[in-house]
């Protein structure tokens, strides 16, 4: 297990370095003069030069590259052009608010979609199965902001359920906040339900037909125990992987959802940065999302290895 973890950590370090390189290429190499971008076409040349000197983009490309690689490992992303305060102080609280929304979404999604996947798998090719598969296919293919806009119109405005603006006033209790976050979270639930349900269904169907399941049934184990100890233990590995990937990818969809509900999360912070050409903030947000993705896939791999000894033995050898 230790070897397995070390190996995965090594891969993550390489991935982070490559990620920082990709972002560096997009921003610093292809993007051209950052100072000009940030300050706009009407700014004076000496102001642009001063800004470039301030953030270090006047240095040789190779030196900038080493700094940016160092920064991702030390989580030092420089100062925001807008507020002059460190980017990290701006991004982390916003990330916290997005995380709150995301956690609520996953708390609702995971049990519902795993249950739906198992339900569908046990009725393979029957009507109930087709409904789950097709609803999942449809709901997960619609962009999150579209679902969010429809939920906003239908529930918040028409039925007066939930809130139009998702920002709870300061001092609202955890349960009070739920009312504010429910609709944006539901938009994400609808989007991610399909992937997780379909992956669970596929995993359970494979496990249902496996030899070990037949053996377990034949030796007279009660069906509940076969389900829990034999089928789910094996079938959930791909589901766990999909969930971990969704945790990283949800930060793509959450931007649209936050915009629709005017929620002050990481997505809104990024959109403000886009509007103000605040490249350091945008760069940091993208890198942090990449780090979250890597952390969540690492956790998923560890969980799968913990559940299934075959995985950790294969990786160790």
């Amino acid at each position, binding site marked *: 297990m230790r070897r397995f973890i070390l190996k995965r950590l090594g891969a993550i370090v*390489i*991935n*982070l370095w*490559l*990620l920082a390189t*990709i*972002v560096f290429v*997009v*921003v610093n190499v*292809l*993007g*051209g003069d950052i100072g000009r*971008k940030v300050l706009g076409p009407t700014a004076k040349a000496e102001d642009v030069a001063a800004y470039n000197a301030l953030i270090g983009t006047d240095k040789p490309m190779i030196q900038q590259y080493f700094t940016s690689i160092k920064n991702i490992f030390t989580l030092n992303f420089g100062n925001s052009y807008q507020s002059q305060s460190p980017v990290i102080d701006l991004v982390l609280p916003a990330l916290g608010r997005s995380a709150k929304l995301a956690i609520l979404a996953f708390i609702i999604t995971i049990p519902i979609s795993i249950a739906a996947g198992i339900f569908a798998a046990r009725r393979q090719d029957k009507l109930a199965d087709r409904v789950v598969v097709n609803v999942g*296919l*449809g709901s997960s*293919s*619609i*962009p*999150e*902001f*579209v679902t969010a*806009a*429809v939920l*906003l*119109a239908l529930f918040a*405005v*028409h039925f007066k359920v939930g809130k*139009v603006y998702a920002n709870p006033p300061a001092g609202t209790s955890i349960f009070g906040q739920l009312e504010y976050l429910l609709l944006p979270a539901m938009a994400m639930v609808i989007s991610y339900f399909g992937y997780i349900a379909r992956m669970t269904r596929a995993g359970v169907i494979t496990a249902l037909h496996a030899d070990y399941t037949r053996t377990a049934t034949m030796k007279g184990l009660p069906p509940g125990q076969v389900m829990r100890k034999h089928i789910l233990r094996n079938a959930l590995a791909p589901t766990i992987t999909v969930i971990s990937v969704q945790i*990283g*990818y*949800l*930060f*793509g*969809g959450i*931007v*649209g959802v936050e*915009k*629709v509900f005017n929620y002050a999360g990481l997505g809104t912070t*990024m*959109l403000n*940065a*886009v*509007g103000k*050409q605040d*490249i350091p903030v*945008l*760069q940091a*947000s*993208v890198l942090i*999302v*990449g780090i979250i*993705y*890597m952390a969540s*896939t690492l956790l998923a791999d560890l969980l799968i290895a913990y559940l299934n000894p075959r995985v950790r033995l294969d990786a160790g050898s």
Partner: protein
Amino acid sequence: MSEMKPTPDDSVEDIDAFIEAAAANLHDRKEARRESWRLLRRRPSFIIGVVIMGFWVVCALVPDLIAPFDPLDYRTDINASPSWPNIFGTDRGGRDVFSRVIAGARDILKLAPPAALLGVVFGVILGLFMGFLRGWFDTVASRVVESFLSLPVVLLGLLAVTTLGKSNLVVMGTVAVLFTPVVARTVRSAVLAEADLDYVESAKLRGESTPFIMFREILPNVSSPIIVELTVRIGYAVFTIATLSFLGAGPPPPSPDWGSQVSDNYNAIVSGYWWSTFFPAMAIASLVIAANLIADSVQSVLEGS
């Protein structure tokens, strides 16, 4: 499929038999293609997908024939609720929402399919090299592919549009580049499965060049996953480009682009004017679902699930 492939024999006498087998194989392949097409046409989900997609393609080609009003024309009533003659109502600029939804099909359809196609072409080339050359090139490229996959496409898209400038070309190019790693990964694994088969070995022994083997021998045999990937990518391209344009990377407000329309009008939902957001939103949903219905049918037929 692979067991039907003829392999040239060393003995000269068998050359006629070999040519005959090759001809038969070509015939089989045509038959198989016809059979796939027949199976596809029988699937209701494929038909529904094609009908919806076809409708939007017609709208994109000849919007003036379907739209009753000029999509950019300011009519007298702003935020008028759906009624005759403005069956989808009017938006906050007093423009006919129905005409704008029809006209907006062009903005997404001129970007999404080309972006998907470009991404698939890049991905196929990269995947062929990775799977066929293997070795250090594959190791390095696989790592790069993996790190690309660790970021949501929409976020990298936002970053690219911000630093490179807001234009159709940047949006299309970014989506194509971001799809390349995903496609490359799929093609790579398909190529790996082919690379050890006899026909590749015999092509190598015949002294064929590496590009010839990759593009003329292997490529036709991995066409199924590539076609599936292309249909899947079109759906994702619509998804991604619509989201990017909602987030502000699309054409500016007077444009009838669907994502821009939603972005321009969603704040009016609070005041009860849902139609100016709802109909373009539904248009996006219908187009993505149509693309996915087609992709799903193609996948089932070609992969036999």
